[in-house]
């Protein structure tokens, strides 16, 4: 299976001009930018503008990022500042005050939110590493309530009795993926050599 890079590796490659690495960074972490914009209740159009300014700022500061591994936090903070400023400009009756715009981002709740973002990135990355078959099977089982195995089996062309064990095997593969292992133990996630 192809090597699945860590965010630090992606940043290093992007610094060297690797566009695919940059695309992967955007793919993985757009959720962070979008989620912050949503929390500030900005319109889709304003969110798109802010998203663009945040990514542009990252591109311009790629070389000087102190902690590539802390990119999600950097994105969240940068987006929050931009959103807060947009919010203030839209509501003209609120006089501008030199408030700590990112107070929200340094609270324990904010830390937990960032951890959730990291978990979700790891899950999506690990999911993408699975075989087509596993992705197909797991996707079918997402509904709440999950479909009856008889229906799932019919849709997938699998015997009913094999769905449960296959699901278990796919999830176990997910757990042992590099992305998930890196979450559990950062040291084990790094590539060798």
């Amino acid at each position: 299976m192809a090597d699945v890079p860590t965010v630090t590796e992606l940043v290093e490659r992007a610094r060297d001009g690797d566009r695919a690495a940059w695309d992967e960074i955007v793919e993985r972490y757009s959720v962070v930018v979008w989620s912050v914009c949503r929390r500030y209740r900005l319109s889709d159009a304003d969110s798109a503008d802010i998203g663009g300014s945040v990514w542009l700022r990252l591109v311009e500061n790629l070389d000087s990022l102190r902690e590539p591994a802390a990119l999600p936090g950097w994105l969240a903070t940068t987006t929050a500042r931009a959103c807060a400023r947009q919010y203030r400009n839209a509501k003209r009756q609120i006089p501008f005050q030199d408030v700590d715009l990112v107070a929200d981002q340094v609270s324990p709740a904010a830390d937990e939110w960032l951890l959730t973002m990291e978990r979700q990135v790891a899950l999506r990355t690990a999911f993408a590493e699975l075989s087509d078959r596993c992705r197909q099977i797991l996707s079918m089982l997402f509904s709440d309530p999950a479909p009856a195995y008889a229906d799932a089996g019919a849709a997938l062309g699998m015997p009913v009795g094999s769905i449960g064990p296959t699901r278990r095997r796919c999830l176990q593969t997910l757990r042992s993926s590099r992305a998930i292992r890196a979450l559990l133990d950062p040291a084990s996630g790094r590539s060798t050599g």
Partner: protein
Amino acid sequence: MTTSGWDDDERLLAELDAALRARAAVPDELVQTGKEMFGWRLIDAELAALTFDSTSAEGSRTLATVRGQAPPRALSFHSDRLNIEVEISGDGLRGQIIPPRRATVEVDDGTDPRPRVRCDSDGWFSLPPTAGRFRMTVRADGFAVRTEWIRDGTGSPATE
């Protein structure tokens, strides 16, 4: 970092579902714009020179003053590829790129991150009020144009 609950297949499946939905909810435009930004890394901006300033001695003579109200400050910039017309008032910057084209306009006035907006199909754009000295960068298809620094972008005439 705790991943409690991931031993349980049901919870892992539910979290995976939530993670995939979260990514699916992000508008394509935000993702595409983000990817395009990589192309801006190496582009040098052309300079757009100031060709008219209503607060200059010459500029003031060409504009009428609305009674009892300071007129907006009007600025014109010229570069080979496009011109920029801007009006500055207490409400902010309102301007147009001529000829109109798909572009973004970004203001550098020390604010972090810099405000950046897209112009509409006629080239119009609006930006929030600036905090004094500023310059603008227009980014369009494969090139960038940057204005010279403008003193005092707050909308009041230059006092110098």
